């Protein structure tokens, strides 16, 4: 599906490719044993290697390589048995070696696919060009001193996976879905925590526009856009800006731009900020990275079930809609919660309760599902009461609210508040009779053909029973009595 943007000269297609920098989950850095924990005091997690001291040498961290292999397998990419680390040379105060060790011509993973779950239940495949391993740089702190910058090297040398997509996306929404899906896969694999606020996942957006059917236009790269919302904003802004520039008779400059989250706009970086000739060449301190094919195949065997496979299973086994299944599998914790709720129960009913009532409460209280006020077991208990007719769906919502408030289980609340559903025909009949007696004019209208009034009688009778009447029984009896 292609969404076009209308300009003055007709419709434009937006072409988007994303470069994601994902911080590898690893206790130690890519080439040193220094720690990687987030939020440590500045310069407390720095080895002499990370600080670029004379004579220090990098040694590859096997675990980081394993994480990259798992990620490559997780996006269905080709893990290359030989890859090469290169030096990307440039000067900056937070780059102690004067070069970043990265992979340039021979990355560890080539190709791959990320499948987007669209709102309408369809899917869209986005190609991944490559995934490579590289070192992160340190951090310059410009706000600590009036005239000097401070440097924090804690992040220097931390392992990143740069994941480059093909220019396959056509809308900001797709870009947003791509990041979310990739993030979901990384989190399932345990290779990146996906935390964009802490900078564990960062995104550069390549955007160009063209008239449909025309070759790619000139692209711009917007750097370090640090939330899904900002990525979508940056793309929207950049696309409209480019259309305006072209329609105004100018050309797009291939340039690097920065996103301004305050204004939701992008601006060109100063030319000095990116006028680099990186002088890439293979790092002579490191031998080519050779992977044992058995290691790769062993890792493939122990990969967890990933979101796409889980979604397929939910559609097949639980008979969920692809959309609902997609929502449930996005986070591993949600999927696990759901599976506990659904086990031995009506899977669709379980899905509805998780995605509407539970998500509603979590959103309202700003809680993660791991901290849900209602446990999966308790929610299961509530659904059991619905299924065995103890309470109606409507009462269940009331019970659920009470569960959120009190933390008690459903059965206890039903007992306490006397919410047990009335299926006793005698009691219901009595209530119907009373309602009919009070509304004889409406009974007459109904009997003369205005059958829509059934709803009115259902409501009134339900009200008379305090909502506890079994709706099935009530409906049946009411129809019989109204028919006369």
């Amino acid at each position, binding site marked *: 599906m292609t969404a076009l943007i209308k300009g003055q000269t007709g419709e434009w297609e937006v072409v988007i490719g994303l470069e994601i920098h994902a911080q590898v989950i690893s206790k130690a850095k890519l080439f040193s044993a220094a720690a990687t924990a987030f939020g440590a005091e500045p310069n407390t997690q720095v080895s*002499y290697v990370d600080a670029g*001291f*004379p*004579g220090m040498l990098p*040694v590859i961290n096997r675990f980081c390589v394993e994480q990259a292999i798992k990620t490559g397998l997780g996006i269905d990419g080709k893990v290359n048995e030989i890859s090469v680390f290169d030096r990307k*040379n440039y000067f900056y105060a937070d780059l102690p070696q004067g*070069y970043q060790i990265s992979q340039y011509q021979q990355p560890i993973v080539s190709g791959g696919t990320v499948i987007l779950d669209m709102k309408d239940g369809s899917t869209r495949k986005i190609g991944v060009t490559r995934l490579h391993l590289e070192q992160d740089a340190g951090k310059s702190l410009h706000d600590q001193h009036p005239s000097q910058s401070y440097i924090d090297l804690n992040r220097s040398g931390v392992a990143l996976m740069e994941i480059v997509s093909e220019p396959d996306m056509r809308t900001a929404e797709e870009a947003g879905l791509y990041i979310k899906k990739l993030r979901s896969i990384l989190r399932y694999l345990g290779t990146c925590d996906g935390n964009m606020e802490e900078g564990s996942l960062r995104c550069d957006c390549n955007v160009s526009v063209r008239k449909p059917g025309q070759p790619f236009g000139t692209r711009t790269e917007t750097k370090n856009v640090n939330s899904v919302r900002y990525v979508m904003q940056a793309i929207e802004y950049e696309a409209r800006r480019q259309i305006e520039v072209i329609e105004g008779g100018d050309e797009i400059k291939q340039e690097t731009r920065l996103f301004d989250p305050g204004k939701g706009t992008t601006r060109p970086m100063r030319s000095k900020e990116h006028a680099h000739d990186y002088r*890439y*060449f293979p790092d*002579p301190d490191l031998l080519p990275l050779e992977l044992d094919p058995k290691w790769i195949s062993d890792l493939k065997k122990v990969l967890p079930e990933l979101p796409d496979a889980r979604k397929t299973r939910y559609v097949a086994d639980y008979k969920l809609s692809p959309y609902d299944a997609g929502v449930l599998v996005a986070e591993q914790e949600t999927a696990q919660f759901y599976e506990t709720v659904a086990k031995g129960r009506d899977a669709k009913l379980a899905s509805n309760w998780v995605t509407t009532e539970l998500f509603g409460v979590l959103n309202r209280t700003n809680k993660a599902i791991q901290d849900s006020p209602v446990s999966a077991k308790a929610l299961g208990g509530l659904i059991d009461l619905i299924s065995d007719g103890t309470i109606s769906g409507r009462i269940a919502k009331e019970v659920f609210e009470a569960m959120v408030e009190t933390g008690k289980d459903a059965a206890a609340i039903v007992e306490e508040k006397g919410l047990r559903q009335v299926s006793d025909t005698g009691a219901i009949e009595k209530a119907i009779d009373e309602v009919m007696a009070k509304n004889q004019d409406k009974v007459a209208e109904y009997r003369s053909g205005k059958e829509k009034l059934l709803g009115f009688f259902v409501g009134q009778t339900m009200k008379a029973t305090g909502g506890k009447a079994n709706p099935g029984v009530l409906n049946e009896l009411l129809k019989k009595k109204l028919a006369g």
Partner: protein
Amino acid sequence: MAAPTHMTIAEARKALKAKKISSAELTDAHLKAMEQTRGLNAFVTETPERAKADAKRADVVLAKGEGGPLEGIPLGIKDLFCTEGVLTTAGSHILDGFKPPYESTVSAKLWQAGAIMLGKLNMDEFAMGSSNMTSYHGAVKNPWRRKGANSDLVPGGSSGGSAAAVAARSVMGATATDTGGSIRQPAAFTGTVGIKPTYGRCSRWGIVAFASSLDQAGPIARTVEDCAIMLQAMSGHDPKDSTSADLPVPNFEAAVERGVKGLKIGIPKEYKLDGAPKEIQDLWEQGIAWLKEAGATPVDITLPHTKYALPVYYVIAPAEASSNLARYDGVRFGLRVPGKTLDEMYENTRAAGFGAEVKRRILIGTYVLSAGYYDAYYLRAQRVRSLIARDFTEAYKQVDAILTPATPSAAFAIGEKMDDPIAMYLNDVFTVTANLAGLPGISVPGGVNADGLPLGLQVIGKAFDEETVFAVGRALEKAANFTALPEGMA
């Protein structure tokens, strides 16, 4: 018993064990020689207090009949090796005041073996040079002079301080490094023995990097046997250096007296240079004759890509250096010359901190790696490098080792060749091939020229076959019976 400063390491070791001499006496004698030869400018830093304390400790160990293979032996350390708490400058102003908080693997191994550090030895800045003229700490003088002449000669480089100190008997042996000939050329210029082992034999961890794919540590000492003793202690796999070879270290000392009977020695025709001095050619022929007499068979071989070695080297080495030296930016250690902006600080620091030769090589290296030039220079140089390595692989199907001259001339005077960098680069013409191919090479004094200056012969071996290199080197040493001493050293 010889005077302490005229003993070889092997002799001193025996004397220490037999308690004919103490490490304190041995160390004091060398400290005294160090003082007396200060005029050579071989040392950047002297560490007499530490040496005396360590000698005392060594004597305690020796008294118990214990101790490592170098227990109590006083050595010098090239200033390229990081030594914990001891100034390490790499011969550069830019490392002003840098006292590493760590010890290089190679020097640490020597201390574990019981050796004693007398000080840090002068060198060409960042090991870039063949004369020791590029050192920020000033030129080193060769203890040798031309017969009847007064002009000071260079000791070669970049390990000029190491070679001069060994020749001047102020250290029994010294560590050195060799990127294009920096062990073998100064050894040849000073009548000492120096071996560059196979790339990967010694760890590069803690050695200030010049060109990572070429740099190798090795010893300079006065005999082949002493080099074998030292290299034994310096070698071995180091998990901290990804390019260090995970191979067992053979018994080098045992290989020294193995003899050369039955060995085939390659004589590469490409090492016969047009316009090379006759004394060099004569020495080479003499070497061939000596090995023949000792039972080896000379075999004419061809190493067809030899003529490209020097240009290839002067693309690859500066390329790696330009990147390796980027870390000297004034931010974290060493010299900082302030500026109004970060870029200005970089410019001021590096302008003041690096000497002319280092700047020249950074410029060359930056150029050959630049977009649009990479393929034509760096990539092509790497391809030719593989061809040079293949030449050796082919040759070693026929021969066990290769004999060449070590240098195209004897030591030259301080100030000569300084205005012509290319002429200076030619010093490495016989030695760079071993670096490009990663092979072990030794320089052994073969005799003196008409001016009474020492000349060296080079033996290049197969990868990780230092044993044959030592055996052939020893055969040459024996035949040459090189006993000449620099003036005033008798």
